[in-house]
């Protein structure tokens, strides 16, 4: 397979192709929309078929990455480096390593499923809906690939706007409040980041035109710690913490999820939350290892992560709305990822990456299922349901399997991720890992209780009984089967995923260890890199 | 009239009219009905006219009586009578004693500051150099009598200003007429 890929020079054009295809697709969809001159009834089928075709093409195209990338090699795969704005020293540089490869594949494989998920639920203004989804994909892929800080920031914003519109236009009742809150939350965070990026660029330029290349800045921070490194790290950390979302900055997530349309919340949960953790793993921690590993900073991050885990689980226990429950469970799962990152061992980092991917798959599937039942019953309140397993057995089976994977029962992907994070973080942070492990109990409690209120319990409400004969149709089953297979496959045989991310995780840990040792040596001499805490 | 010859007479009358002016001003402010207020204001103006004469500005004194007291106050009274606001005691005109106290306090504060400024060295820069003072004195006693010293600067250096004031008066008249005119058909928008 790799010879075939090298034969067609896959490394050279794949990354820009992955970015441009959705943009072209968006233009196509909009053009097609214009031809239909806005009568939605006839336009809908055409729009969604075209969009699905483009997303499938994108997915097939990206599959090559699975074999092409050789995890061991330290340099970026598929690197493309073009001048973009020479006066400011901004270059269009993209490239990926093991971590980014996994997240890109997650994105390209989830998108067609999200489109299929909202096949019949979105009926008005479908062309602009699918065009926005396509632009959103470019933004997300761009964030994973960017190796230039300004390009990263631009893609960060490109990803934000379509999501704001999707929630704002096609959302539920309180969509305006939710989308505005979502936008302002992320925007405030990312503005801080912009300041930090500019500061870094100037520092790297040393008086001349600023340099924003990731490798250049990495070399600079390795040589001598940047003045004000603490503030730059904090700026990055806050921007990513809002996106993760970490404990105090998470209140936008439940509102955004509840009000977003099905595809919107699937993408929001499966991919957009991973921007924050990816940001930590790619930018915040490697560029400023001595600040990230500084005892107080690390302590604060770990405390917030573990509070997020327990707090998310506890609050999810009492949610009346199923989507809000899953949103808070996402806060809890991503708390695991942050714990894994800041425990800084190879096992915990790999565990964090596995949790990122498995959370994407399981929570994505959960939101799709919620979307399906919402299309039939038009309600998300748990007490409106009861005894659905009697009338919709296929739906009940899928929901049970996905809930079990989200709880983290062994044999599913959820367990592999959480087990590795807890196992890896125990040697360095025993008490944090211990407290985080208690969330294993709460996870089982809130999800099983919710699942029981939906599919078990007596079938007494007439609306539920009317669901007889309205089980999942072939489209929905076809949509869920790949996700269920992924859940079981990653649970039973996660080796391929682990080997692909091991090299990148190892490099990160060694980089941070080296930096920490050098600062310790320096600490004995002149006090911690001049900041003097 | 040379004031050096009758210093006593001069200063006595000066204080008399000063106090009269202050008293009637105070009464003017506190009257409820606009007509009574107007009358006291006219009285203030007469006292000021007397002061001007005592200060040697006879022309200004005359003008004061003619223009201010005669014309402007008459227009005021005319308007008061036109809108028959004479007996406006019904409307509690004053703004409640809290407002009055505050205004009083603010006024006294301003007065105090002005007085303090007057004694401070800041005022010293304003006092005229001796030479200038002398030159001003002869001008008044020069040939053209009382009107001369005013007419010269008025029609030589400040001729432009003089013409502008006439333009101003013309616009004021036209404006007043336009605003005051009753619109036919429909009330004032």
């Amino acid at each position: 397979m790799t010879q075939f890929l090298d034969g067609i020079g896959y490394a050279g054009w794949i990354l820009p192709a992955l970015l441009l295809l959705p943009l072209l697709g968006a233009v196509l969809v909009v053009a097609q929309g214009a031809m239909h001159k806005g009568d939605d009834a006839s336009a809908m089928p055409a729009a969604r078929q075209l969009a699905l075709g483009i997303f499938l093409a994108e997915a097939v195209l990206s599959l090559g990455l699975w074999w092409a990338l050789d995890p061991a090699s330290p340099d970026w795969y598929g690197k493309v480096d073009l001048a973009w704005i020479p006066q400011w020293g901004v270059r269009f540089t993209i490239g990926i390593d093991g971590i980014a490869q996994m997240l890109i594949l997650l994105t390209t494989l989830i998108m067609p499923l999200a489109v299929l998920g909202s096949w019949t639920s979105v009926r008005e203004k479908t062309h602009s809906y699918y065009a926005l989804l396509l632009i959103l994909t470019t933004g997300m892929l761009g964030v994973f690939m960017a190796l230039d800080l300004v390009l990263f920031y631009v893609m960060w914003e490109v990803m934000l706007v379509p999501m704001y519109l999707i929630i704002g236009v096609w959302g539920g009742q309180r969509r305006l409040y939710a989308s505005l809150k979502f936008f302002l939350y992320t925007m405030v965070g990312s503005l801080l980041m912009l300041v930090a990026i500019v500061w870094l660029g100037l520092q790297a330029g040393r008086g001349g035109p600023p340099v924003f290349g990731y490798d250049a800045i990495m070399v600079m921070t390795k040589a001598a710690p940047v003045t004000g490194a603490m503030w730059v790290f904090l700026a990055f950390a806050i921007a990513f913490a809002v996106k993760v979302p970490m404990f105090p900055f998470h209140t936008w997530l439940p509102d955004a999820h509840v009000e977003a349309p099905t595809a919107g919340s699937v993408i929001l949960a499966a991919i957009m939350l991973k921007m924050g953790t990816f940001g930590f793993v790619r930018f915040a921690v490697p560029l400023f290892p001595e600040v990230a590993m500084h005892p107080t900073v690390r302590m604060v991050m770990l405390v917030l992560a573990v509070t997020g885990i327990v707090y998310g689980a506890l609050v999810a226990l009492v949610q009346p709305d199923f989507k809000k429950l899953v949103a808070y469970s996402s806060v809890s799962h991503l708390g695991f990822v942050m714990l894994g990152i800041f425990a800084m061992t190879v096992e915990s980092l790999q565990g964090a990456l596995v949790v990122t991917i498995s959370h994407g798959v399981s929570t994505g599937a959960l939101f799709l299922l919620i979307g399906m039942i919402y299309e039939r019953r038009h309600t998300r309140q748990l007490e409106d349901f009861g005894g659905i397993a009697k009338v919709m057995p296929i739906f009940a089976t899928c929901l049970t399997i996905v809930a079990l994977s989200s709880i983290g029962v062994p044999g599913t992907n959820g367990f592999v991720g959480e087990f590795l994070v807890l196992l890896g973080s125990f040697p360095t942070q025993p008490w944090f890992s211990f407290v985080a492990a208690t969330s294993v109990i709460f996870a089982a409690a809130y999800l099983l209780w919710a699942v029981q209120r939906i599919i078990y319990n007596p079938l007494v409400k007439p609306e539920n009984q009317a669901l007889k004969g309205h089980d999942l149709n072939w489209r929905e089953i076809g949509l869920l089967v790949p996700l269920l297979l992924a859940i079981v496959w990653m649970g039973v045989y996660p080796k391929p995923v682990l080997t692909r991310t091991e090299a990148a995780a190892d490099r990160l840990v060694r980089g941070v260890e080296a930096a920490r040792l050098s600062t310790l040596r320096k600490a004995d001499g002149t006090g911690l890199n001049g900041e003097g805490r | 009239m040379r004031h050096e010859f009758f210093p006593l007479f001069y200063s006595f009358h000066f204080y008399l009219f000063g106090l009269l002016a202050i008293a009637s001003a105070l009464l003017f402010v506190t009257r409820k009905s606009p007509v009574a207020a107007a009358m006291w204001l006219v009285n203030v103006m007469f006292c000021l006219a007397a002061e001007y004469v005592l200060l040697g500005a006879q022309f200004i004194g005359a003008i004061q009586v003619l223009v201010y007291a005669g014309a402007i106050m008459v227009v005021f009274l005319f308007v008061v009578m036109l809108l028959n606001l004479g007996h406006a005691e019904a409307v509690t005109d004053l703004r409640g004693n809290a407002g009055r106290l505050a205004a009083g306090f603010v006024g006294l504060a301003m007065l105090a500051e002005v007085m303090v400024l007057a004694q401070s060295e800041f005022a010293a820069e304003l006092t005229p150099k001796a030479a200038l003072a002398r030159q001003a004195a002869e001008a008044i006693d020069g040939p053209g009598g009382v009107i001369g010293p005013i007419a010269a600067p008025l029609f030589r250096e400040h001729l432009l200003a003089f013409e502008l004031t006439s333009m101003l008066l013309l616009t004021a008249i036209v404006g007043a007429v336009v605003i005051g005119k009753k619109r036919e058909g429909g009330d004032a928008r």
Partner: protein
Amino acid sequence: MLAESLALSAVLFTIGVIGVLTRRNAIILFMCVELMLNAVNLSFVALSKLYGATGQVFVVMVMTVAAAEAAVGLAIIIAIFRHRQSVDLEDINLLKG
């Protein structure tokens, strides 16, 4: 005599200011403004003894301005009165921001 006349002018000016602040009747407000102008004229005249007659030219100017202002002001008051049947300043707040 200069100090006393300046003091008198200051007192009259203050009374005028107090009148402006306290009275709610538009016409009386104008009168207070007239009083303040007279106070200023007095100080002009007082100082013209020291700085020459230009002071008094100024007084003439001030009088013309006062006259114009009174005319236009009263016209406005009449227009408002026709509309609102009152000249109480509290009612007239069309310019509310």
